[in-house]
């Protein structure tokens, strides 16, 4: 979860989010470089006192300030498109988890081993008194998923449009009634991850959080068996 006055991303909980953070850092370096360059020349130009005296063209400089930005953009585009297609690769999932949004709670359905178990969990937000200081984030039940296992998450809704979000995992999917949206995630560490509904859905839109715990595979089975 975020802490007070946090400016950057939360610690990544999935491999994709790590890549998103690397890409963000890479792009931000380029942005800061370009910004510094532009600001320096802008300020120098304003303070120089020079006046334009009929200068109409400069073939070399115009060529340079077209080509270099294009090269920079190509450098940004490669990792961006790579990531974009990587996160859409759904062929390697091991586990299917269905997320259904309701007004105003989330429910999760997990089916295992060719119909052997169907687990359905309804997760309501804990009231302020029971939230141990983490108001608007805690739920009475939470979803557990095994780490290092590609999970296919199918998001839908029972009533109005919601959005299932976990910022630390880098996933967000609209829960649209009558539609199944597919997300792909592989948790990378054992931790508790928090999120909140991200599409206005009525009076209690701010009060339907998402809580997910990354656990080892045996612990996941134990959770399913409720031992």
């Amino acid at each position, binding site marked *: 979860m975020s802490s007070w006055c946090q400016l950057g991303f939360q610690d990544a909980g999935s491999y994709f989010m790590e890549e998103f953070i690397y890409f963000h850092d890479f792009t931000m370096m380029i942005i800061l470089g370009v910004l510094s360059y532009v600001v320096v020349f802008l300020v120098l130009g304003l303070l120089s006192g020079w006046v334009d005296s009929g200068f109409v063209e400069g073939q070399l400089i115009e060529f340079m300030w077209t080509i270099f930005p294009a090269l920079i953009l190509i450098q940004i585009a490669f990792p961006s498109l790579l990531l974009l297609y990587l996160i859409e690769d759904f062929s390697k999932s091991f586990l299917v988890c269905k997320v259904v949004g309701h007004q105003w709670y989330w429910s999760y359905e997990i089916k295992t081993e060719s119909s*052997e178990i169907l687990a359905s969990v309804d997760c309501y937000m804990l009231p302020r008194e029971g939230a141990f200081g983490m108001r608007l984030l805690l739920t009475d039940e939470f979803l557990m998923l095994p780490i290092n296992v590609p999970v296919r998450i199918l998001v839908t809704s029972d009533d109005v449009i919601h959005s299932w979000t976990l910022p630390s995992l880098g996933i967000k999917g609209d829960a649209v009634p009558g539609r199944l949206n597919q997300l792909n995630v592989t948790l990378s560490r054992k931790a508790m991850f928090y999120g909140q509904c991200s599409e206005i859905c009525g009076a209690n839109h701010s009060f339907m959080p998402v809580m997910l715990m990354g656990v080892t595979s045996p612990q996941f089975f134990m959770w399913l068996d409720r031992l």
Partner: protein
Amino acid sequence: MSSGVEITRPEGAIPLAQKYSGLSEEEVKKRIIAYNPPADSRFPNQNQTKNCFQNYVDFQRCVRLRGEDYKPCQFFERNYKFLCPTGWIEKWDEQLENNTFPVKL
């Protein structure tokens, strides 16, 4: 068991933790849950609604053509049970019973 959780399990099923106790995490992972409806090139994108519905319809058609005991029909059955939310399945089953299912099977 918490009131917010429902587990349905067929009679005689061994609890998974007991079934997998004594195995290392790697071995558990190999035998894991691991039924995942295979990637269907007809539905390559984020919207999997049709994937779920098509498998349901294909199962119903398969069973009507070949009978309930025809094993290959189970492929479609597994797929739709894994992909489709329970509410949708119940609604379609009810529509089938009432003869109001929107597709001609």
